[in-house]
């Protein structure tokens, strides 16, 4: 019984009938977080690089203000 199955109190989920075996499901569930991390990491890295570039090459050269 998987964790989800134990939470909802059933021994098998309807999806079992789709012919997806549990091993494949678990392997996908192992891969998905890595993909999510890669996507989120790339997005945040691009935003950070953009912020730093605008800060250093646009904002700071525009001169002192205060």
């Amino acid at each position: 019984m998987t964790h989800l199955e134990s939470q909802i109190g059933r021994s098998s989920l309807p999806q079992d009938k789709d012919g997806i075996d549990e091993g494949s499901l678990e392997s996908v569930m192992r891969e998905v977080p890595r993909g999510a991390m890669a996507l989120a990491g790339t997005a945040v890295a691009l935003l950070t690089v953009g912020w730093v570039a605008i800060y250093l090459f646009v904002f700071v050269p525009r001169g002192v203000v205060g």
Partner: protein
Amino acid sequence: MAESADAQERHILATELRWSAMVAVLVAAILSVVVYTAISVGINPPSNVERIDPKSLHLTGEFAEHNLGTSVAADGAITARMVATQFAFVPRCIALPSGKPVTLRFASPDVVHGLLITGTNVNTMVVPGYIAQVHTVFTQTGDLLMPCHEYCGLGHSEMWAVVQVVPEKEFKPASDGRASCEKR
């Protein structure tokens, strides 16, 4: 199987904690850059709490008509004063030198206005009852557009001025310390 699920949950928790730590480091790094620049270079958000009566500011004192525009004090301090009113800046043009510290002071007799000077970091609100003040050093020369950027009424889109930034050598105030724009 339950152990495997628990292991998976622990793995996800560890991933989320790693991600949170990375984001915290990133935020701390960005804040450090901002604070370092503020302290070392002196780039700060303009901040000034100085009251003025909006009903009479144009009659006497600092923002009376004869005192508007750019003036150079005996100690060399350069100050430009402008009134932001529906729907114009008075005067329409101010002359300032590049490469020297200047102080810009604004007041409004009617509604909330705002302004920015294109290509610079000058950007402030002009709130009736207060004097908006910005210290800056212009790093470029030319006629810089200064539009009102806070909707102030039907004529808002027509409300703009020009900041004529000239090279320091060419900035020559009159004997009374006043400087005005050259006609081009």
